[in-house]
């Protein structure tokens, strides 16, 4: 039975609605995505249970973001629990399905990306927790016949704190107050806890998702099992842009389903049977006009031609007089850098499960993009979005790839051909590697100018690269001044005060699909920028840290990161014999990260990465150990891609199909990693991505010092390209 009352806007854009259902105080929430009129009509369950406080003292908090390893399924509940003054040992977490009410307040879409979980939801979640707390306090005050101001909330209970009252010192647990609290109106603008009094936020609380991840019980998308479920696999175009023509017959007992870019095979027995049948299925493929041009050699030549003669030249940033600075320079340095296309390689391949009926569509998926998935499913089934239910599973990695909706779309298309039967679609690793939306390749030429004192007077750069923005919405780029900021971020956002900077970009319309990859443009543009800064420091005859330090006077947070890094890495002392160090710093997603890498070895015998020192200022950390874990993760992923990562194309075909030809870091490759978090109190910054950009340039800078050779092209150690 529900005793819900009208929803209340408790903070700008955050609506709450209370009810008592199934033995629990349920606080439904909407972060402002639903139309205002919808709130009055919505039942609390339509607004979706956000916090559930059971009479059994259990507290369930929904994590609105996808959990792909970054730890937000613990960090977000921590924020609610802090204001709620919950007993953390009673807190359980649930992963949110698709619901417009859970849209990230930063961009009004339920989507996990851009290191936005904590930044986007922080204020709203505090308000939600504080509202529930005030309702419980009010219920407790009524129970004890005192004023709310006589009560305090602590560790999952309300206590009468004022001395000298008949009920002084009495305590009522949240569970015992749940029913009464649910009948109250959520208060507007509840008081928030001063950070210095935080007891949960800012502490290294063990993650809520880890126990299930060490005993095999965590359910990833690929693990979904439903009664009567069948298994699907896909054979997609082996070359870029192809579509299927004639499709051969499926083995007995199986069926094929034609898809826009390939064919699905559905088996009743196992995923293995479906993959095997898909692999041996006969399909004729029809080339797109651009298929043959997806060839690494040809694409490199085309990019080089664009660099010198391409148009329009789009200006992303133009401060001061950079050309003038070059003309007046005592010394100039020019260098050209490049990076290849890079796959995402999340270890759980793309997969999704769908059950379509004439009136409904239910999806289980490891997705970073709940909102977009619902829209895609609605378009395919012809159902309205309210008839689409999406359950978010754990994600076995995502790295941005699972923010695309293609695999979910395929599952829905297949399930639509067999109404009432749940279909689990699983891509083979080969499909996953060759049907990626890759990190864009990029070619960047930079010129820096130094005055007679060795001070940097300006940086001019021109980048040629494909564009995520262009591929997702080309119309905007008909305007010759339109710039995809992600193509140059990391260059335009250097932390330094430069007297002049001109950043140009030329769009490359190469046919390879590109998309978001951990830290997006920063992941390679910081390699260009911070490697080049070291080249300039060398030309100026200055120490790399001293050179950077001189340009950070107006950026005290970055300066503090660099100074802490200097101390923690022992930069002042000479490295061990045979070792060398490199440094890099970047600011992105609202955080500043600096890294120093210590290496030994040689270009011929191999480079050994011994240790990495990381310093991050993300404003404040919610869960410091999670921040450290993300720095470790970003360093390892960034190292692997800097050393070995690429996807070569030959005559339209992506050539690396599995981990036998795509080299990933393993245990023996992992350096010691030491992370320091600066709790600067600045605005909250992201954590999942900002650790990645500095590692490639720090490594390149160390290699230049160790060997005298500047590596300007990634990967630094290209692996043999398979011939078929």
């Amino acid at each position, binding site marked *: 039975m529900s005793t819900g009352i009208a929803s209340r806007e408790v903070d700008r854009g955050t609506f709450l609605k209370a009810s008592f259902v199934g033995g629990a105080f349920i606080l439904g929430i909407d972060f402002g995505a639903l139309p205002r009129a919808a709130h009055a009509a919505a039942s609390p369950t339509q607004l979706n249970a956000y916090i559930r406080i059971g009479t059994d003292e259990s507290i369930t908090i929904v994590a609105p973001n996808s959990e*792909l*390893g*970054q*730890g937000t399924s613990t960090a977000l509940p921590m924020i609610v629990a802090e204001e709620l003054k919950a007993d953390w040992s009673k807190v359980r977490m649930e992963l949110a399905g698709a619901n417009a009410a859970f849209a990230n307040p930063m961009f009004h879409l339920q989507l996990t990306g851009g290191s936005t979980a904590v930044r986007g939801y922080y204020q709203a979640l505090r308000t939600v927790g504080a509202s529930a707390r005030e309702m419980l306090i009010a219920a407790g005050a009524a129970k004890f016949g005192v004023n709310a101001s006589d009560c305090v909330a602590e560790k999952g209970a309300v206590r009468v704190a004022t001395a000298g009252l008949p009920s002084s010192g009495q305590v009522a647990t949240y569970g015992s107050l749940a029913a009464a609290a649910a009948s109250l109106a959520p208060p507007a603008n509840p008081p928030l806890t001063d950070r210095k009094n935080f007891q949960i936020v800012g502490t*290294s609380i*063990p*993650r809520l*998702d*880890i126990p*299930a*991840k*060490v*005993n*095999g019980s*965590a359910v*990833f998308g*690929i*693990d979904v*099992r439903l009664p009567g479920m069948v298994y699907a696999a896909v054979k997609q175009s082996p070359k870029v842009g192809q579509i299927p023509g004639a499709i051969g017959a499926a083995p007995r007992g199986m069926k094929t389903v034609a898809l826009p870019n390939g064919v699905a095979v559905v088996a009743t*027995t*196992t*995923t*293995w*049977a479906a*993959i095997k049948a898909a692999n041996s299925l006969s399909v004729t493929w029809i080339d797109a006009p651009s298929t043959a041009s997806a060839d690494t050699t040809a694409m490199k030549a085309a990019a080089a031609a664009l660099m010198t003669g391409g148009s329009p030249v789009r200006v992303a940033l133009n401060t001061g007089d950079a050309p003038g600075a070059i003309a007046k320079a005592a010394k100039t340095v020019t260098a050209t850098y490049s990076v290849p296309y890079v796959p995402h*390689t*999340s*270890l*759980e*391949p793309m997969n999704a499960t769908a059950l379509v009926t004439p009136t409904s569509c239910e999806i289980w998926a490891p997705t970073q993009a709940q909102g977009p998935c619902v829209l895609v499913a609605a378009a395919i089934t012809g159902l309205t979005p309210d008839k689409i239910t999406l359950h978010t599973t*754990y*994600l*076995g*990695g*995502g*790295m941005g790839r699972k923010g695309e909706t293609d695999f979910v779309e395929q599952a829905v298309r297949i399930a639509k051909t067999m109404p009432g039967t749940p279909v689990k679609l699983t891509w083979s*690793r080969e499909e996953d590697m060759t049907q990626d939306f890759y990190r864009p390749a990029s070619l960047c030429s930079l010129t820096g100018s130094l005055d007679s004192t060795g001070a940097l007077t300006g940086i001019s750069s021109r980048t040629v690269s494909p564009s995520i923005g262009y591929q997702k919405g080309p119309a905007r780029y008909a305007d010759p001044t339109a710039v995809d900021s992600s193509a140059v971020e990391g260059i335009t956002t250097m932390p330094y005060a430069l007297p002049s900077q001109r950043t140009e970009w030329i769009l490359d319309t190469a046919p390879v699909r590109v998309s978001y990859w951990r830290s997006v443009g920063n992941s390679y543009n910081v390699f260009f920028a911070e490697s080049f800064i070291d080249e300039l420091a060398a030309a100026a005859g200055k120490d790399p840290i001293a050179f950077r330090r001189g340009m950070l006077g107006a950026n005290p947070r970055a300066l503090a990161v660099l100074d802490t890094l200097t101390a923690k890495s022992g930069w002042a002392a000479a490295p061990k014999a045979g070792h060398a160090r490199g440094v890099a710093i970047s600011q992105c997603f609202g955080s500043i990260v600096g890294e120093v890498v210590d290496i030994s070895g040689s270009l011929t015998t191999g480079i050994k990465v011994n240790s990495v020192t990381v310093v991050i200022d993300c404003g404040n950390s919610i869960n410091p*150990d999670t921040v*450290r*874990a993300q720095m*470790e*993760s*970003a360093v*390892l*992923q960034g190292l*692997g891609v800097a050393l070995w990562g690429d996807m070569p194309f030959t005559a339209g075909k992506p050539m690396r199909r*599995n*981990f*036998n030809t795509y080299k*990933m870091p*393993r*245990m*023996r*490759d*992992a*350096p*010691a*990693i*030491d*992370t320091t978090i600066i709790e600067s109190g600045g605005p909250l910054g992201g954590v999942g991505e900002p650790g990645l950009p500095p590692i490639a340039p720090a490594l390149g800078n160390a290699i230049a010092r160790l060997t005298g050779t500047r590596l300007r092209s990634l990967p630094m150690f290209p692996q043999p390209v398979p011939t078929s």
Partner: protein
Amino acid sequence: MSETRTYSLNVNGTTYPVTADSETPLLWVLRDLIGLTGTKYGCGIEQCYACSVMVDGQVEHACVFDATSAIGKKITTIEGLSTVAPKLQQAWIDEQVPQCGYCQSGMLIAAAGLLKEHPQPADSDIDSGLPNICACGTYPRIRKAVKRAAGVATTSTVSR
């Protein structure tokens, strides 16, 4: 030419009847026919080792392991690991190892195999004994967790 075959497998001490194409690898018998999904598919060609299980105490890669050759043997998956190596899972929790968690079933099985062979593993034993891929890069914490489970002093690789 493959054929359908009926047999039974002993997994984590329980006997499961199986009717499957005789070529179906152990991984898919476990996941799709028996319903133990803790063992993961990552590559299918014995490269990432996310599918690691134990067969009669030996670490095997289930994606290429003929299920019928496990008939009459004792199979241990992540779901049954706690009876074989109880300290490992707790060490993984204590060191807060998993991130996405997808590789960790295979990692834990491989670690159990490693500790069986090297009860006091040196770093070089861990390097060679745990070749599994973790795309999240949890290696420094795995190293610490293995040593913790083994009761070996750690040279700190992670600032925690």
